[in-house]
């Protein structure tokens, strides 16, 4: 029988939510690693029982946890993230050079084919890889050293590499995004990278159309069309039809085009979801109404999805890694809020219900569709 497993990272631990294919009754396990910040938990597409979790705290630094049984038990694995060579400097908030310093792992992206291989996106921005189940980590320095690194600077949340997308049709091609450097693409398995930010416009940087320096919040793709990318930028929802070589804005009739998360329907490559947030200084929904917006034509034309979501006095945020979809029919959409709710829709967004209401602030949501 099919089912889903929702992996939730929060400010105070990780949780695993499970349901059968109806997605009506949920079992909740956790908190795992209670009291620690869990930036991300993700399962291997090649082995659904293999999970990786990024556990960190200001006191004790970074820990990586691995599960071989779908999150029932966990083992700490390697946590040495050392930049290759002389790390050099990037720009600090005030524009002065600042040494590259490892702070935490924001995102873990398991290989599509090998459960032992997993990528890590870290702050300060770099990409690491483990080929032994998280025991040992090596930086893939071609990204940080590709040339523009000294001009990168942090966003308000830190200079984090928060998005890693592996092209399902070509595993040597990856897309990553960094706040606030922008999006990058490799075609050769992370040896060389190029910025893919043409068409982005960011008014808060000296050259609004610069090749790097854009605060990309999240990018997403549909596995059947890896040349089509969708982006939630700091402001603006963007689309590329040429694997990031050029971007065009598709914010259309959104009430605000600021936001963090973006995702694509599992079966409809032109159906995308965002959660508009009022502004970069007011991180809550406009008018106190929590609305997911859906476009069924790849952008520009958006409809609010509100049934089951609070439509008054709601001032939560939905962070960049806190939305995911399952691949059941019909497609399930999930997102978590900084107010501790995890909402689920089992009908592509038409209606919503909270799975839980009172978690710690949600940092990330991932979904595994189980058969």
């Amino acid at each position: 029988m099919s089912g889903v497993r929702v992996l939730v990272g929060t400010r105070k631990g990780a949780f695993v939510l499970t349901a059968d294919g109806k997605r009506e009754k949920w079992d909740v396990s956790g908190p795992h690693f209670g009291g620690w910040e869990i930036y991300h938990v993700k399962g291997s597409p090649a082995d659904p029982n293999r999970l990786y979790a990024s556990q960190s705290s200001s006191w004790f630094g970074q820990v990586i946890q691995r599960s071989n049984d779908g999150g029932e038990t966990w083992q700490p694995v390697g946590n040495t993230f050392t930049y290759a060579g002389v790390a050099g400097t990037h720009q600090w908030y005030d524009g002065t050079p600042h040494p590259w310093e490892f702070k935490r792992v924001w995102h873990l992206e398991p290989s599509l084919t090998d459960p032992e291989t997993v990528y890590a996106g870290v702050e300060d921005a770099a990409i690491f890889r483990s080929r032994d189940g998280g025991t040992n980590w090596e930086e893939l320095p071609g990204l940080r050293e590709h040339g523009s690194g000294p001009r990168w600077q942090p966003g308000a949340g830190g200079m984090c590499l928060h998005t890693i997308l592996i092209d399902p049709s070509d595993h040597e091609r990856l897309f990553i995004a960094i706040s606030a450097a922008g999006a990058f693409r490799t075609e050769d398995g992370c040896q060389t990278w190029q910025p893919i930010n043409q068409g982005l416009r960011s008014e808060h940087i000296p050259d609004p159309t610069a090749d790097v320096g854009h605060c990309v919040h999240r990018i997403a793709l549909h596995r059947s069309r890896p040349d089509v990318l969708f982006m939630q930028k700091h402001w603006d929802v963007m689309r590329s039809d040429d694997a990031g070589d050029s971007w065009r804005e598709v914010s259309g009739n959104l009430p605000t085009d600021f936001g963090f998360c973006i995702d694509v329907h599992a079966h409809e490559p032109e159906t995308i979801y965002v959660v508009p947030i009022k502004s970069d200084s007011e991180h809550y929904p406009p008018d106190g109404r929590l609305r997911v917006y859906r476009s069924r034509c790849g952008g520009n034309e958006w409809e609010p999805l509100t049934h089951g979501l609070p439509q008054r006095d709601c001032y939560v945020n939905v962070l960049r890694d806190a939305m995911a979809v399952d691949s059941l029919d019909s497609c399930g959409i999930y997102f978590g809020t900084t107010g501790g709710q995890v909402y689920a829709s089992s009908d592509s967004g038409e209606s919503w219900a909270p799975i839980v209401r009172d978690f710690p602030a949600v940092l990330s949501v991932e979904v595994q569709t189980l058969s």
Partner: protein
Amino acid sequence: MKVRVVLPPHLRKLAQLGAEVELEVDGAVTQRSVLDALEARYPMLRGTIREHGTQKRRPFLRFFACNQDLSHEAPETPLPAAVATGEEPFLIVGAIAGG
């Protein structure tokens, strides 16, 4: 030489330990030798007390023993005799901060 070490609750849980751990320390009993012995026995603690590479004490942690703050002592400085004999524990304490 048996040395007693008390860890903060989060690290006890990470290493699946009780309130106190006893360690066999070879040679001089110093911050470094105690922490080396601790990390050798519980590798999951590597990087959580001292930073990888520099081996510096993480800034939100302090080292206490015998009513003294030893946080700023050199890592090679011998710990008090009462710690070396196991009479008093070596305390690794997390800062009281945050929410």
